[in-house]
Structures are given as C-alpha cells and as structure tokens.
C-alpha cells in the first residue's frame, strides 16, 4: 500500500550549485511560507515551500527564531548555574534536559546518585513523556482540523501538570533534577492523586482512540501519507517513535537502559507502515505505556533514603577534564547531551542532540517533496518536532 514518494526525478532540475532550478517568474511555481506565525507550524519555526499547483516541489526548514545560545551561555555558567537553564531548551518536555545534563556531569565528576533519586527521575521523565505526547496528539489531530482532541489532551496534560506542580514546585520548568539527585521526595498523598490523574488520562485515551484513530477522516488523511522509507532511517538519524512507526524497535530505554528502566517491564511499541498514522499510533501506545510505567514506578520505588548524593560545594564545583555523551529516550526519540569539561568550574562545551534536529531539518526537507500543501502540517507534526531543541 505504501510507497516511497520522495522521488525527485519528475521535478525541476538542480543547478550546478545544488539549488533547484525554479523560475518563480514563470508563474508555474509559487513560494509559500508556512510560519513562523502560522497555525500549521509547530512552534516558532517556518518552512519555506516552493509549490507547483498544490504540490510541494521543495521545502526548506528555517529555524533560529528561538535561538538563545544555550550552548554558549552554559560555557559561562558554573555547573550548578547551568541547572536552571537547561530545561528551557525544550519547552514541552523540559525534564529530559535536566536529566541528561545532570547525568553527564555526574558521570564526569564520578558522582553516584541515590536509589530513590533514580526512581524519582524516572517518574518525572515518564510524566514528561506523557505530557509531551498529549501535546502531540492534540497537535496531530489539530493539524487535520480535528480540534477537539487537543481540548481533551490539553486538559489531561494540565492535570499531569498539577502533579508536576505538587511534586516539583512548578508547572512547566520544573528544575527538580539537579546534579547529584533530585530536590525532594514525593509529597504526601501523591500516589492517590496520581492514580486519579492516570484514570482520567486512560478515559481520555479511550476517547482519543474512538474519535481520532477510529475516525475515517483521520485515517484517510494519515494512512499512507508521510511515508518514510526505513532504509533512510540511518541516513537521517531517525530515532524514537518516528523510527518505531517504521518497524525499527529503536528505544534507548531498552537498547541502553538507564535510571530505573532495567527494573521496569514494558514492550517497545512498534508499528510497521512508517506513515503518519503509524507514528501517531506508536505515540498513542507510548502514552498508554507511560501511564503503566508511572504505576509501576510508584509501586516499585523505594520511599526511604536520601535523594541527593553527597556533593561538594556547588558554588565552586570543578570537574576534571573529560567528555561524555548521555542519551535517553524522550517522547520524540533520542535525546542526548554531549558534555566536555576542562577541569574548571564551567563546562567547556555542551552540545544538545535533540531528535527534532534531524527530523525537522534534513528529513523533513526530503519528505516534503511531492507532498500536498494540505498535508505539510500533518507531516511536520507527525515528526513531532519542537523547534527550540533544534536551535537551542
């Protein structure tokens, strides 16, 4: 049923410098900007489309609208001062930054975090994954005009934000996972309230299934659309649900388990068609899996013992020269921090590897060719991109 449509042969030739030979004055082609201020774009980015009729012949991703220069700013902040800033790199799922950063400096400094902290970190990451996926489901359905899903998922996401708030003290930027562990233990009565939230989430997920995935319009517009040839996955650094939607069971949680994941039971969700529907379905099942994992974590986690390792004075914490890479499976794929230290109190270099970086740039530009204008938004959302992590 599916086929690789990203064949360029019938489209304009390339000039010698690699640019597309498109004569905009010919009247045959039109340039269309989708974004940055556009309902069909994910966040503050834009796609420069060259269209012929309602078909895209070329698309260029433009980012940088959210560039704050984190990697530069971190070079002039001490290791503890980097802690509040990293979460801002990705707004909908900030905790992954906190975890990767903390884990990287912990590894370089030789710090072992307490058991309870590991579990709380895992809990937070799963809560964050769930939230991110809720945003995705709302966005994916919204990109096809199915606005009601977003109304529901935003509500459950908000309930989860309430849990975040009581656990971490903040709604969006939690700043809870810091080098050495986490700030605090679970508040009293957290489990019961979490269970209530999870039940509500499960109810919503049923509705999402009925109204979104069982919806003829949605199916019609997503099955077979936005196909990615699994053979391209390695070429374009495709990871996470995007790869798993194409039958490749890439999941860092299973491939290179971290935190408490070795102690948790879960199957890697895979679909086979590598189209928008498959990716959406993988993510839907990921969300359900998160609910299950949160339950498992709360049931299995230790409730006593410290949550912070014994740390040196953070004000002048120096870390010996070294470099490392910490990865984890965030809701969109492989998220990682490459951290280089030089023995001073400041990181020498921090490089954030977000899945959107490869998905929304090179991969999108490849996939978008031949795409119908109306499907661009759906395709883009189906890659689950968050622009701030591209440009940082």
């Amino acid at each position, binding site marked *: 049923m599916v086929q690789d449509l990203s064949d360029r042969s019938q489209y304009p030739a390339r000039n010698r410098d690699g640019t597309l030979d498109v004569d*905009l*004055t010919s*009247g045959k082609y039109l*340039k269309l900007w989708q974004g*940055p*201020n*556009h*309902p069909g774009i994910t*966040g*503050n980015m834009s796609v420069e489309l060259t269209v012929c009729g309602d078909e895209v012949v070329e698309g260029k991703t433009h980012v*940088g*609208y*959210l*560039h*704050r*220069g984190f990697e*530069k*700013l971190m070079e*002039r902040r001490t290791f503890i001062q980097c802690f*509040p*800033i990293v979460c*801002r790199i990705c*707004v*909908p799922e900030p905790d992954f930054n906190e975890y990767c950063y903390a884990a990287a400096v912990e590894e370089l400094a030789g710090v072992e975090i307490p058991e309870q902290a590991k579990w709380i970190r895992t809990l937070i990451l799963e809560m964050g994954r769930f939230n991110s996926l809720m*945003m995705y489901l*709302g966005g994916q359905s919204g990109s096809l005009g199915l606005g009601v899903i*977003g*109304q529901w998922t*935003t*509500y459950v*996401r*908000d309930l989860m*934000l309430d849990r975040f708030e009581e656990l971490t003290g903040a*709604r*969006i*930027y939690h700043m809870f996972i810091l080098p050495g562990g986490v700030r605090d233990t679970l508040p009293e009565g957290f489990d019961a309230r979490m269970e209530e939230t999870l039940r509500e989430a499960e109810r919503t997920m049923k509705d999402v299934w009925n109204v979104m995935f069982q919806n003829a319009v949605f199916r019609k517009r997503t099955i077979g659309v936005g196909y990615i040839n699994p053979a391209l996955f390695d070429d374009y650094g495709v990871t996470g649900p995007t790869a798993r939607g194409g039958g490749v069971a890439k999941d860092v949680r299973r491939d290179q388990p971290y935190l408490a994941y070795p102690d948790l039971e879960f199957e890697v969700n895979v679909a086979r068609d590598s189209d928008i529907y498959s990716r959406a379905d993988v993510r839907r099942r990921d969300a359900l899996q998160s609910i299950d994992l949160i339950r498992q974590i709360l049931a299995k986690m230790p409730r006593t013992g410290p949550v912070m390792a014994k740390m040196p004075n953070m004000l002048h914490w120096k870390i010996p020269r070294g470099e490392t890479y910490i990865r984890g499976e965030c809701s969109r794929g492989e998220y990682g921090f490459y951290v280089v230290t030089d023995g001073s109190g400041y990181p020498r270099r921090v490089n954030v590897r977000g899945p959107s970086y490869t998905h929304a740039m090179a991969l999108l530009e490849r996939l978008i060719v031949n795409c119908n204008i109306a499907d661009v938004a759906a395709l883009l959302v189906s890659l689950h991109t968050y622009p*701030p992590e591209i440009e940082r």
Partner: protein
Amino acid sequence: MKDELKPRIVKGPDGIEFEVDPLRDYYCEASPSVHPPVYVKIVEDFFNWARSESLWILGFGTGCGAIEMRPLMTPRFDAYRFGVQWRPTPRQANLLMISGYLSTKTLKRAIRSYEQMQSPKYVVGLGSCTINGGMYWDSYNTIKKLDEYLPVDLYIVGCMPRPEALLQGFEDLKQIIRAGKAEGANQYAEKFEWYKANQKKVIHDWDMPDYNW
C-alpha cells in the same frame, strides 16, 4: 538583501512584462498615525469598554511562554468566556502577546506582525525576559527590554507565568483599556522614529520597508 526583494522585471502569464519593486509594491509605506480619542468622552468610554471585552490575541508563539496559552484556549481555563480568543492572522487580532524572550530573528517578525495589526492594538510582555532580559540576560541573540522596540501596555511576571496569571493579566489589561490608558499604538506612532532606530540597531539585515502595514 534577498534576491526576491530586489526590483526586477516580471513577465506575467499573459506575456506582458512589468517592473516589480517588492519593497514598494508589496507593502504599504504609509507611516502609522495617532488615533485621537473620539470627541465625546462617553462614546470613547463605550469604545474602550467594547475593546476591553474583545481581546483577540495573535496566535504567534514567539517564545516558551506560548505553552501556557494552550491551557487557556481549552476548557479548563477557558479564556474565551472572558472575551479573549486567538486569531491566526494579525489582521484579526488586537493583542500581541510576546511570550517571553525574543530573538532578534523573531523580533523582526514580531514587528511586522504588530504593524500589520489593527489599531487600537495592545502588547503584553510575558515573563521576566521581556522586562530585563530574564535568564537570557547575557545572550547575544535575544533582546533585553521589549519596550525599546514595541510599546508595551502590560507586563506579566513569571518564568513562565501560569495561565491564572495570564487571566489576571487580561483582566488588568481590560482595566487599563477601559481607563483609556492603553495608548501603545498611539505611542508607537508618536515615537515612531525612536522605535525604528532601536529596531534597526539590533536587526542587522533590515530588508523591509520601515512600516509594514
């Protein structure tokens, strides 16, 4: 300047050639002007009341604060009941929410969006970054004081401000509008040169007309 913005000869589908100067032809160059209040105060008060009760926000998520808008658009906080709603195009909006930091690249777009909005129009700065740079105070790519570039009617503090704080902000903005003090658009027209100079200082590839109306 980008090629597509340079003046050029274009051949239409009908075969007739004509000259296009995109900067002149695609934009309106007229400078903004001050809108004086209506002659009768009671009428102006009525207008202000009406304006305050229909805050239409441009759905332009300029920064991270945009993520707290979504709960407002959805049933839990439901800002629509307070006369607040989101519009996809500047032409239909009268409230520009600058949701946090603005990179210079976005500032350029924000200015365009703002200038394309209908007067009377309002700007609300969200979060610390709009006030004094916030946590990006030493970043080479974000502006520090929003009011140097756009007239700001209200600031809502936080990093980021919660939906409830935004709702409070809307209520406060309504008060300001009703009191006839939300004169940002007029201020922008009055101090147009000053704003432009500030904008051009940080936007290095200024390749658009001064006023993007």
